[in-house]
């Protein structure tokens, strides 16, 4: 089977024009596909942003006229504001817990080869692959079995489980790029484990943790499948509120809220890029 890869067929005699045409055709095809993909990736964000500034009551694109009236209308949208506040609280708690629990685990996973730690790695990553909706439902059954009712702290714990993988991935990546000799140097100079962690390791992996924290925050703020089962009227979160708005009545206020979310996301992304080198951590 491997003969095919070992024994190359006789190469055709190189001609002068052919290779450059081939190189050109490959670049053309890939360039066009990539350009299409980028338009496809970015267009929806631009469309919703422009639509949110419409002066009329229709969601047609391109929007007719320009105004901030729907943004002003958000000031009176009490339910939406309450949902946004809930989402923010949940996402902040989730991020803090993900970092506090995820960072030590990431250190163990990056440094230890014991089977126990390998198994933990697989377990902690599985929420990324398993259907989140099934987990949300399982969590609801479990909470009922325990005789509890879903509330904010339980919602946060559910989010922590599905958002931890993001912190783990970026932190482990940062740890594996860490020069081990730096840690040896610190120890040989008499620093304790804790001092070495605080003064050497932590500053060097801080950008990795930061990028992971940002991703966890966004994932929690955006989570629907877990919140669908663990949030009730009191703890209604923003994505579910918006989802119901879109399903029931296409309200232009929803477009304004969407525009606001897009603007906030972009701002946070730029901040994360400047401070934590987001795009470098995601490579």
């Amino acid at each position, binding site marked *: 089977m491997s003969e095919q*890869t070992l024994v*190359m067929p006789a*190469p055709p*005699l190189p001609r002068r024009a*052919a*290779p450059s045409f081939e190189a050109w055709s490959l670049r053309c095809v*890939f*360039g066009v*596909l*990539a350009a*299409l*993909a*980028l338009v496809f*990736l*970015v267009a*929806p*964000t631009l*469309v*919703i942003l422009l639509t949110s500034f419409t002066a009329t009551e229709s969601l*047609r694109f391109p929007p007719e006229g320009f105004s901030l009236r729907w943004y002003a209308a958000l000031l009176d949208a009490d339910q939406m504001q309450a949902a946004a506040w809930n989402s923010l609280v949940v996402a902040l708690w989730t991020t803090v817990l993900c970092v506090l*629990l995820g960072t*030590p685990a990431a*250190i*163990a*996973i990056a440094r*230890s080869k*014991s089977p*126990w*730690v390998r198994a*933990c790695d697989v377990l902690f990553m*599985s929420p*990324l*692959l*398993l*259907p989140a*909706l*099934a*987990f949300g439902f*399982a969590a609801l*059954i479990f909470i009922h079995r325990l005789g509890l009712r879903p509330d904010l702290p339980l919602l946060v*714990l559910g989010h*922590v489980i599905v958002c931890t993988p993001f912190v783990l991935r970026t932190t482990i990546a940062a740890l594996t790029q860490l020069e081990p000799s730096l840690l040896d140097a610190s120890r040989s100079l008499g620093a304790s*484990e804790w001092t070495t962690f605080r003064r050497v390791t932590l500053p060097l992996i801080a950008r990795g943790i930061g990028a992971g924290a940002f991703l966890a925050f966004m994932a929690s*703020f*955006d989570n*629907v499948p877990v919140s*669908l089962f663990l949030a009730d009227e009191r703890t209604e979160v923003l*994505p579910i509120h918006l*989802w119901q708005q*879109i399903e029931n009545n296409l309200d232009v206020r*929803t*477009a304004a809220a*969407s525009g606001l979310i*897009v603007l906030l*996301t972009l701002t946070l*992304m730029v901040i994360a*890029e400047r401070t934590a080198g987001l*795009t470098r951590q*995601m*490579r």
Partner: protein
Amino acid sequence: MAAPRAPLTLPLTALFAAGFVAPLCVLLMLSLAAGDDGSAGLTLAQYARFLGDRFNLSVLGSTLLLGAEATLVCLLFGFPVAWVCARAGARWQSVLIFLVVLPILTSVVVRTFSWIVILGRQGLLNQILLGLGLIDAPLKLLYSEAGVVLVLAQVQMPLMVLPILTVLSRLDPNLADASRALGAGEWRTLWRVTLPLVMPGIIAGCILSFAASITAFVTQTLIGGARLLYLPLFIYQQAVGANDWPFAAAVSVVFMIAVLLVVVLLNGFGRRYEKHV
């Protein structure tokens, strides 16, 4: 000698044991329980009910098919994006990655809402196609499977691009040069040298985008509408609408096993491929 590291995982392990493993075990028990209170023995009745019904099986089938289609579209467009990214300078690379991850970080509800504006009967896409004279009557894009695949592909594209990019940028450029020096053209080099070497990244990207596509509840319901039924909405209807928890639990377990099977299959394919190379 460094201190043992394993205890560092304990806090997170405790949370996962109580908040992830235990709920999944309870879900499994409920799906197998014979009595309402879950104490009167075990039965496979709920599974027989799901697997014995052609309609239910077709929902499972169309969910898996949807994931496969979205993954293929992701790959078709994602590989060229990663390829261009890997060749770009550091600054352009950051800009490109920024644009690629933008959709996945923007709220899924917002993204989907935007697609409704684009795909509607009088939406942007129909306007453009009508304006160019490519179609005579507006296409039905919203509430169609093609629409769901398209939107899922946009949403999950980063999950395909990033793993491929990681492998591509670590690739030794000498290998491709050697292939060219031996007379292979660009396409041949891509097909015989680059693609096999990038296969681990492609497999990882496929697994991630497949897993994300089939559970994308918001996109499936808002773009697909109520008539296109996929497993996440089916589970939700059974659990919340019909309040039939044991049946919904069984469907959830089937769903998870199906996902795991696909992941294991793709992983195995990747391993075998690596051995061949």
